[in-house]
């Protein structure tokens, strides 16, 4: 059997990232983008519910996205999460 080349479009990677972000409870994903060059850089913008710690949630999303991309895409990407809004009571 010859070599298999996996090609995943930028949009598909962004969708993977968005799904991984949504897996963190309470997170609403506003956008997910991939800048593929020179090193993969993924930006995810989220909204989080009342009362949760922004730093901790952002880190949890970052971990989830990084792990998912490594597993499903096979590449290690730098992930940056932006908390755009915090739901207020």
């Amino acid at each position, binding site marked *: 059997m010859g070599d298999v080349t996996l090609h995943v479009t930028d949009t598909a990677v962004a969708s993977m990232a968005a799904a991984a972000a949504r897996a963190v409870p309470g997170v609403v994903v506003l956008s997910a983008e991939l800048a593929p060059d020179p090193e993969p850089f993924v930006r995810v913008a989220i909204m989080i519910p009342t009362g949760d710690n922004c730093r901790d949630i952002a880190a949890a999303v970052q971990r989830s996205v990084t792990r998912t991309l490594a597993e499903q895409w096979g590449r290690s990407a730098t992930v940056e999460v*932006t908390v755009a809004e915090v739901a207020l009571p």
Partner: protein
Amino acid sequence: MAAVGDGAIELLVCGRDAALVWDRAEAGRPPDEHERSCPYCTAAYAEAARLDVAVHRMAVEPVDPPPSVLASVMGAVRAAPRLADTLLLDSPLGPNRLARPAAAAVLRAAVDAMDGMRARSCRIEQPGPGTTADVTLTVAARFGLDLAGATARVRQTVFAASEQVLGVPLRRVDIEVVDLWET
């Protein structure tokens, strides 16, 4: 756009400034001694009063905008969030970001929840290195409040909110009481 005759003063036959007479009649002020006995002023008063009845009814007639206008405006406002203006959040996988207006809203809400205090301006700066921030707040306080005690409590509240809700450690919180309000 200056129109012809803009600055001209119109006089009643008795010599009084017509605009002033109409103004006073409109304001419901009673005629003075001259106006009571002068047929021109009396006529002007009567004209103004008659018109005023209908004008007042027009002024109180409710005319409300359809909700679609505000909905459309807020849709446009929310569609373009200022994501470029961010603070840094610590993380072992590299720094994340927090929109500054969102952070400021959290700290303001914490201040608003305190009795007698309402936050106005809330500026958060991270002078670096690291994510530790300085906060500068202006507040309006209820008249009669013990300002020293309340300011100290606000400081505590802001420190706590920034640590617990934002995850941004604070170095200093400066509070300025800029206004007072009465209940």
